[in-house]
């Protein structure tokens, strides 16, 4: 509650839906998350033959629905290449790692698009565009993007 001093009263405010949002993910996102739980990475092939990873529900080029047939999903990775990155010197509390790390856009082997995740590489000098990386899986996987704890240098 307000401090009573100064010109204006200041109050703390927390915006939080109790328990968190309950998202239904739909079949395409769900297929990818199911794969993560099984320690598998899948992409989705568009009619034009591009492989989108993570699988988009709709082709960003044509807006066509993708992933409508089981055979449209193709295994990719697990290794990939960093296409761009950013070094985080002081992680924020909500960041996936609590030590300095890199955000990296990673094109997994067999994919035509980049996927964002954290890269645990120790130091900034150890990271460069074009480096090869592989996922570090969590032991407990539940079907969530953080089933990959992070990527690490391959």
């Amino acid at each position, binding site marked *: *509650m*307000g401090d*009573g001093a100064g*010109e*204006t*009263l*200041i*109050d*703390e*405010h*927390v*915006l*939080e*839906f109790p*328990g*968190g*949002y*309950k*998202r*239904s*993910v739909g*079949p395409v996102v*769900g*297929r990818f*998350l*199911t794969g993560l*739980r099984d320690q598998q990475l899948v992409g989705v092939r568009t009619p034009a033959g591009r492989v989108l990873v993570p699988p988009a529900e709709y082709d960003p080029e044509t807006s066509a629905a993708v992933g409508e047939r089981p055979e449209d999903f193709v295994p990719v990775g697990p290794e990939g290449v960093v296409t761009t990155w950013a070094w985080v010197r002081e992680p924020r509390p909500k960041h*996936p790692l609590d030590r300095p790390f890199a955000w990296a856009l990673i094109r997994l082997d067999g994919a035509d698009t980049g996927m964002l995740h954290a890269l645990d590489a120790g130091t900034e000098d150890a990271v460069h565009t074009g480096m090869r990386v592989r996922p570090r899986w969590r032991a*407990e996987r*539940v*079907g*969530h993007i*953080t089933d990959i704890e992070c990527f690490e240098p391959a």
Partner: protein
Amino acid sequence: MSGRAIEDLNEDGPVTKMHAPIRLEYRIGAGTAQSRFLRGVAEGKLLGQKCPVCSKVYMPPRGSCPIHGVPTEEEVELPDRGTVTTFCVVNIPFSDLAPEVPYVCAQVLLDGADTALFGLIAGMPAREVRMGLRVRAEWAPREEWTYNLGNIKWWEPTGEPDADYDAYKDYI
């Protein structure tokens, strides 16, 4: 990772759901006009604000007259009694903060004000609350007062005769 608390959702079948806990923290300033009002409330005073153009008295004040888009700087102390213009009886507890059901949510027009406050009516059976009822504020114990209109726990009947419909009908 709090975002991972989802085992219960999907079991062993295909993943169809996920939890997304999102917590954002803010520090909100009440603004100058509202701060003045709330400082009054913290001292048990109800300070309305008068529009310099139309002389209407806003309660609760919001720092401006929305009709004229001008600041309302002149303060008018209002009594903590007024008239129930309209109300509803709530029979479902909608939140943890709600009183025991049934309870009455009312618009209370303070004497001398031109806008009505939302408040709870108590001190009488919910079924007996009526439009035009004369009420006065029941304040929380002084030591619990903060900068919030919640200092008024509820409004209770004064025992005066009901106000005439014509006296408040233009405030609904």
